[in-house]
């Protein structure tokens, strides 16, 4: 697994012009909870936000405490964030703190803005599903309630609360009684994506974790005739199990696992795919949808996939079906039989994704 490239001090890679012209250069901290040795959407989100703030002339930096998702560590970590007074550094005030996910909003700062990527999902909407480590025990119930209550209080300290997606906003309303509106932002590799051929493979890009449900796509391949192939990009704890499943599916020779691929290399894979299959369970936002669209590829997703449904319209920019292998196979086969349909849906998706930019986001967060 690769490290993120280091963020250079002071943003020397971009020319800080705009904010200086309008005279609102601010010192901003982006708070992230980072799982060492993992790389996921939330980390890319914080990384991109810092870069975009710098591009607009702000003095931005990220603050990242290590995060460990096990339930026994949650309150200690929240407490560690609470210990931090981030109102100033080296004697100079910090103008703004942007919190992103649990427990970053526990930090102390007089002007905290939350751009909520997600809460601690196993204590929230994943509770009661196979994806949560919280059980029905009294202890777990109390811990869960404590986290929800503390989140509500800490988020309540924020001067403004927005979310990355409508799906995230809905959860915030449902569990914490907090109203927030979504602020969509472009995926990290937006600039690198391009439309290529509508080739002989469908693409999956995901961390190989249970929530991403990559097994549904592998099973679908048994119902998709050759020569169509499946390329799975990503790494994770389920890789070995998924490779075993692929080998036993009867379509193993048409399923390829590339491991983690970043930047231009993954943009190339998007460019020549026939379509992208992205059917996670209740995703917050999901960069993959927009990445596929920016490469003019239709997205096949599921009715319970969450965030992707804010962009994928069945029959217009992709297909939305039941979360099972059969429905995914039907959608793939339709596109395989009619490449001009794939092209039409993909290009419609592209015009949706191209409307999403950073300018409005930064204005909303900083202004």
């Amino acid at each position: 697994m690769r490290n993120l490239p280091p963020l250079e001090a002071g943003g020397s890679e971009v020319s800080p012009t705009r904010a200086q012209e309008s005279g609102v250069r601010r010192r901003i901290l982006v708070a992230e909870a980072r799982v060492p040795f993992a790389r996921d959407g939330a980390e890319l989100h914080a990384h991109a936000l810092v870069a975009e703030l710098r591009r607009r002339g702000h003095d931005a930096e990220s603050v990242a405490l290590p995060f460990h998702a096990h339930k026994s560590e949650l309150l200690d970590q929240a407490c560690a964030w609470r210990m931090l007074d981030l109102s100033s550094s080296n004697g100079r005030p910090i103008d703004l703190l942007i919190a992103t996910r649990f427990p970053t909003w526990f930090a102390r700062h007089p002007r905290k803005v939350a751009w909520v990527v997600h809460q601690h999902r196993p204590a929230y909407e994943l509770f009661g599903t196979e994806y949560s480590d919280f059980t029905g025990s009294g202890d777990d119930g109390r811990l869960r309630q404590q986290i929800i209550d503390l989140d509500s209080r800490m988020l309540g300290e924020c001067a403004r609360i927005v979310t990355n997606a409508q799906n995230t906003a809905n959860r915030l309303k449902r569990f914490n009684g907090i109203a927030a509106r979504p602020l969509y932002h472009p995926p990290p590799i937006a600039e690198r994506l391009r439309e290529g051929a509508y080739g002989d493979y469908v693409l999956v890009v995901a961390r190989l974790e249970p929530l991403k449900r990559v097994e549904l796509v592998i099973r679908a391949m048994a119902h998709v005739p050759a020569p169509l192939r499946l390329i799975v990009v990503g790494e994770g704890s389920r890789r070995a199990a998924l490779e075993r499943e692929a080998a036993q599916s009867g379509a193993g020779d048409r399923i390829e696992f590339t491991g983690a691929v970043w930047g231009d290399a993954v943009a190339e894979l998007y460019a020549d795919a026939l379509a992208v299959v992205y059917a996670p369970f209740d995703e917050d936002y999901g960069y993959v949808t927009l990445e596929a669209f920016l490469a003019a590829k239709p997205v096949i997703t599921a009715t319970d996939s969450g965030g992707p449904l804010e962009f994928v319209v069945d029959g217009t920019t992709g297909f939305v079906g039941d979360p099972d292998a059969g429905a995914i196979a039907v959608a793939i086969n339709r596109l395989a039989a009619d490449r001009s349909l794939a092209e039409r849906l993909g290009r419609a998706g592209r015009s949706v994704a191209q409307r999403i930019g950073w300018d409005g986001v930064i204005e909303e967060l900083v202004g």
Partner: protein
Amino acid sequence: MRSLRVLILEAQVPFVHGGAEILVRELTSALIARGHDAQVVSVPFRDYPKDELFAGAEAWRLLDVTKAAGHDVDLVIATKFPTYFARHPRKVLWLVHQHRAAYELCGTRFSDFAHSERDVALRRRLIETDTRMLRECVGHFTIAKTVSDRLLKYNTIESEALYNPPKLAGRLRSGPYGDYLLTVTRLEHVKRVDLAIDAFEKVASPVRLVIAGDGSARQALSEYIDRRGLRDRVTMLGRVDDNQLIELYSKCLAVLFAPYQEDYGYVTLESFLSRKPVITALDSGGTLEFVTDGVTGYVCDPTPDALSAAIDRLGADRALAAELGSRGYEVAQDISWDHVVERLVGASQAAETVGASA
């Protein structure tokens, strides 16, 4: 050698970037280059009001750095206060410094610890707690002999100094011995840039002082230069990029670097790698581990008179500057990352073996 998962622990002062941040990133790259999986863990640090010191330390104590993404972390490397408060069975110390205001700076104008009952008690508590946390480490190393001396004096812990090459090693080059002395530093009081400026009031030879760097004392120093009427002799460049810095080193006559009790200071080694001598002071700490008076530079009393005399000697004899600088180059060339990584990783593996046989 087995590939290890290593976390390097960093105390981050947001919006401040100095030698310690570079050190941590360089160490990370050095570990990765030798086949390990290494990442930095940073927790923001604030040293004021003084009560915040313990809040920052507690935050480190609360975080679990033994596991990450479902795997064991094999080794953590603590660098400065309060990173060594982290909990890990194979915590190795490569000490940059403790909280200096409570240690060797206490009693000087650079410390905010007073002789009040409250501050004395806080300081004692801090040093005692430090000692406990430092003792948890399975290996004790420091970035310089000065730091090892302090660790022994205040915490009674023996350690080994492990030097590392500066970031620009490999890119620095020597050029003509020009008409300016170079000072490269963050502009903070403890770097004693005012002393260098004072020296230039007395310098007789036609050389100038060029100061590269930024910091909280920039405005004050700029006004100081004006008050002394030295605007035409002393130039402040602010922050410069790596290419500019390499160029500045390559064309200077010598480097003037006389901070108070510096821990290590890359400047000395960068200067030597550019074949330039270093003029420093008797109380400058880490620079003295490399600068030998009359051999690779000059070690002076921390007074304007003594510094200006040294500057004038080199100003009058550029061949001498070249000779001292070339000897400095030989000294700096012996310092490598291979050795640093070998010692740090070796200490954790020795601890593992002891643990397994116990």
